[in-house]
Structures are given as structure tokens and as C-alpha cells.
């Protein structure tokens, strides 16, 4: 797994060239820790809140109130599932509109009780199906973005695996964006890009390189605030180091953000994004 970080010595050139695609594959690995794994380790006293109070409960998005050290926080995490049964229940991490609606409910409650929000982003994308369209997938992502843009409490987003398109972006409009070393964040999947632009989905590797979707690319663009390095043999059974590093980053950030007045916090969030011209 850590081949991707090895860019010295013989074969460095090829390794370098393969990096983005290797990272995408790492981000998708079955045993990579997922939202529920992090929730179990980073927080305690977790009370999961369920349902959008309208249509149903979407297991692809977990929302909870929990303790992070001595802060009560709201946690919103996209969950893919490890086993086949779990994966099917979570729709392979592709949320439906009710998932985003539940998440908006959690955001509003966080604001009401002045709790910081911590988002764990991990999705190949919002679900593209008939029912999802019927229930307004586009509309609900737009509303989720609006809710995060105006939320008067601090938001930290962490891309822990796949940052697939609008479905991931919906949870990323935050005061601090953290990415794990082998996560990616992209406008479209490399396969999708390859099949549309290069007319051949087997050119995904090339597309991954061209899309500049790795954590280090996004750090260069100043879109992501910090990148957490992944240790050798990192998986869901071996994640203590990452949990420690993440915990440290969250703690430092919360100390800083919770001192800022809510109106000023929102203003700063706006300035941050409006300043990202990418031109």
C-alpha cells in the first residue's frame, strides 16, 4: 500500500507516474477504515440520530451526536460498508436524497446547540438512480451546500477515502478540509472521465493523472488545509496512528475555531472559498 509514497531509488520514475491511480485504488480498498471505524475510535458516547423525518433512513450517511474529548460534536459520515451485506445495505456508499436530508437535519441541530460539526467524506458519488432523481438528488445537494455555507458553527471535513464528485463535495464546504494521504477528491471518477473524454474507460489511469486528484495535488492548489500521512500497513485493523494524528488536528482546529464568533466564522468561510479562484 505504501508503494505510492516510495519515490526514491530505482524505478522511481514509473512509481511516480503510477501514483495517482495507485492512490485511487488505495482509497477504494476494502479494508481501508471507513466512517464507522473512525467514529468508534475518535469519539465516545456516540448517539446515532437516524432518518430524514420525511422519507426514510439512508445507511450511506451516518449522523450522530458524540463526545470528542470534552466537546460535544455532531458527526456526519459517509459509510460504504466492509462486507458484501454491509456494502449492499449502504448502497456502496452512494447516498440517496434522504441521506443528505438527514445530514441537513444534523447540521441544523449542531447550529442550534452550538456544536462543532465533523464530516467524514467517503463516497464514489451521490447515487445516480431513478428514485434518487425523482426525490431531487440535485436539489438536496444544492440545499446541503447552502446549509453548510450559512451554518453558524464550525465545520471540519475530512476526506478519508473517496471524494467522488458532487456527492462528496456536499460535505466538504467547511472551515478546515483535511485529506488522508491516499484519499482523492475529484470532479468525476477517473473511469468516467476516461470513458467520456478518451472514449475508453480502460484509460482510467491516464485520466487519474490528468485530473490532479490526489491529496498532494490539492495541497498544492491550496484547496486542502492539511494532509495526514498514512503509515505502512494502514488498514482498519491498524489505524491507531492515523486516529492519533487526526485527533490532534481536530483538537487544534476546534480550539481555534470555537473561539471565533459564529458570524465571523461564516464570514471567514465565505472569504476562504470566494478567494479560491483557481485562475
Amino acid at each position, binding site marked *: 500500500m505504501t508503494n505510492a509514497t516510495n519515490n526514491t531509488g530505482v524505478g522511481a520514475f514509473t512509481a511516480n507516474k503510477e501514483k495517482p491511480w495507485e492512490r485511487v485504488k488505495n482509497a477504494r480498498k476494502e479494508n481501508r477504515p471507513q466512517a464507522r471505524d473512525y467514529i468508534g475510535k475518535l469519539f465516545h458516547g456516540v448517539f446515532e440520530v437516524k432518518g430524514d423525518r420525511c422519507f426514510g433512513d439512508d445507511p450511506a450517511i451516518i449522523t450522530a451526536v458524540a463526545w470528542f474529548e470534552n466537546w460535544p460534536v455532531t458527526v456526519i459520515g459517509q459509510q460504504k460498508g466492509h462486507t458484501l451485506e454491509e456494502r449492499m445495505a449502504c448502497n456502496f456508499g452512494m447516498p440517496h436524497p434522504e441521506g443528505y436530508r438527514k445530514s441537513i437535519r444534523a447540521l441544523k441541530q449542531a447550529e442550534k446547540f452550538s456544536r462543532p460539526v465533523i464530516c467524514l467524506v467517503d463516497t464514489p458519488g*451521490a*447515487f*445516480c*438512480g*431513478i428514485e*434518487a*432523481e*425523482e*426525490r*431531487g*438528488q*440535485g*436539489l438536496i*445537494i*444544492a*440545499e446541503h*451546500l*447552502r446549509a453548510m*455555507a*450559512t451554518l453558524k458553527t464550525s465545520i471540519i471535513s475530512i476526506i478519508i477515502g473517496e471524494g467522488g*464528485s*458532487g456527492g462528496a*463535495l*456536499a460535505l*466538504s*464546504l467547511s472551515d478546515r478540509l483535511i485529506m488522508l494521504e491516499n484519499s482523492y*477528491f*475529484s*470532479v*468525476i471518477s477517473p473511469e*468516467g*472521465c476516461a470513458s*467520456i*473524454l478518451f472514449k475508453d474507460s480502460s484509460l482510467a489511469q491516464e485520466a487519474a493523472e*490528468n*485530473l*490532479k*486528484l490526489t491529496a498532494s*495535488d*490539492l495541497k498544492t*492548489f491550496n*484547496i486542502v488545509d492539511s494532509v495526514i500521512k498514512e503509515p505502512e500497513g494502514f488498514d482498519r485493523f491498524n489505524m491507531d496512528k492515523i486516529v492519533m494524528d487526526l485527533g490532534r488536528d481536530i483538537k487544534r482546529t476546534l480550539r481555534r475555531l470555537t473561539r471565533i464568533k459564529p458570524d465571523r466564522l461564516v*464570514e471567514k*468561510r*465565505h*472569504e476562504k*472559498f*470566494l*478567494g*479560491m*479562484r*483557481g*485562475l
Partner: protein
Amino acid sequence: MKLFSESIEVENAAERPKDDALEKLHCGGCGKDMIADIAHANDSTCPYCGALFRQPAYKRIEMIVDSGSFIEIEREAESKDPLSFPGYKTKIASEKTKSNMQEGVIIGKATIKGQRTAIAVMDSYFMMGSMGTVVGEKIVIIAGFATMNRLPLIIFCASGGARMQEGIHSLLQMSRTTIALARHSEQKLLHVNVLTHPTTGGVTASFAMQGDIIIAEPKSLIGFAGPRVIEQTVKDKLPEGFQTSEYLLGKGLIDRIVDRKDLRDTLAEILGLHCKR
């Protein structure tokens, strides 16, 4: 915050180039071919069967706002190539020639039956109206301009979604436009969207669905995912009329479907209903 006050250049709409690059159009409704200029002179409607063509942005302006009232801003903004994406620069150059547009959206201020408004019109003839940094930035600028000048904002949406060639920078425009429009909305200013064929992807999942009032042209494709992607996902044929304006109206996702020839009157009415007394 001074983000919007800088570098707004004002130009006269009369100097704009002509839309003469579009030569022929094929009507999907009746199967006839015709000269594009003739169709566009007829509100971009098929003279044989009345089916709607995608309307070039400047034609749209001509049809909607009071004659001579449109003042375009930021006309010269053009896309860079932030990812050095293969073939992108060439693509942009050819799209410019083909569409006679600098980018996929024009923005400015105008009056509609004497009522002042800020307006943005996307053009699907420029790279299918895809949203890259310039399209996003221009929506941010016009939202900021409308906020500063306390104007309502009308956005004609037409987009295939976020532009792949600018990668993450395109995706981020969803957040940026959302923020700019949230600031407009917080000042209790009106935002009307007109969804036209096609409105999909990142544009649907951000500003296209954030209007106080959302109207659509008949039979337009409006959705988050494109129909082909959905078909591949569900491995089944899609129901008849799926993702059309009529379908969205039935699902409670938009307010009204308005014929192209009635859009000017309808927008004037909406502006009138929201003017402060």
C-alpha cells in the same frame, strides 16, 4: 469584504460579435434541417413543428430584456488551463470560434419592462455550458454585483455539469456559487432561475436549484445525473418523459413551466411581485 468590487469592466452589448457560426440545425421533433439563423430569428423554435432549439445566450438576452438595456460585465474573462489538461486549450479555442462566445455564460445588468435586474445567461453552445472556473467566477461576480446594488438576479441555466478539464477547480465552483448566492439571499433579494435544456450535473446540484422561484422551459432535460449514466447504473430503460421539465413539475421540484414566448412577461410579473413598496 471587497471581493466583488474589483475589475468590473462595463461594455456595451451592441459591440458583441454576431452568432453567425451556427449554420445548420436539425430538428429532433420533425426531423427537418434548417438554417440556424432562421430558426434563431424565430425564438430558436422550429418553424415547422414548434420544437425548441437550445438558444444562444445573446439571442436569449435580446428576447428577454428591454431593447438596448443590457450592459455586459466581465465579457473578456477566459479560461486558463489550471491542470494543463491534454487538448483543453485547443478545445477552448475551437469552442470560441464555433459559438462566438468567450465562455459558457454571459452576465450583466438590464431592465425587463422597466424593472432593473442582474442577469446571467448560460450558453450550451459553448462546451455544453459546462461549469469551469470562469463560469463559476462569473456567477460569483454577478451575485456579488446584484448584492452590492440590491438587485434581483435572474439566471438562465443550461449546462452539462462541471467541466472535467478543470478537475477539482470546476467542482469547487458549486461551493463558490452557493456562497455568493447565499450572501445575495441573506440580503432578502430575489433569485429566479430559468432552467433550460439541458440543466444537469454540478449546476443542478448547486445554483440551479437554489432559486426562490424556479421555472423551466417545456420538455427540457433537467437532472443531477445524465440519463445514460442512470441507464448504465440501473441497467434498465428509463420511464417515458423521465427528467423532463414536466416530470420535475409533477414531482414538486419546480414551480412552473413557461413557453419561451411567454418568458419575458412571466419574468416581468415575478419581478413586479417582489418589488418593495
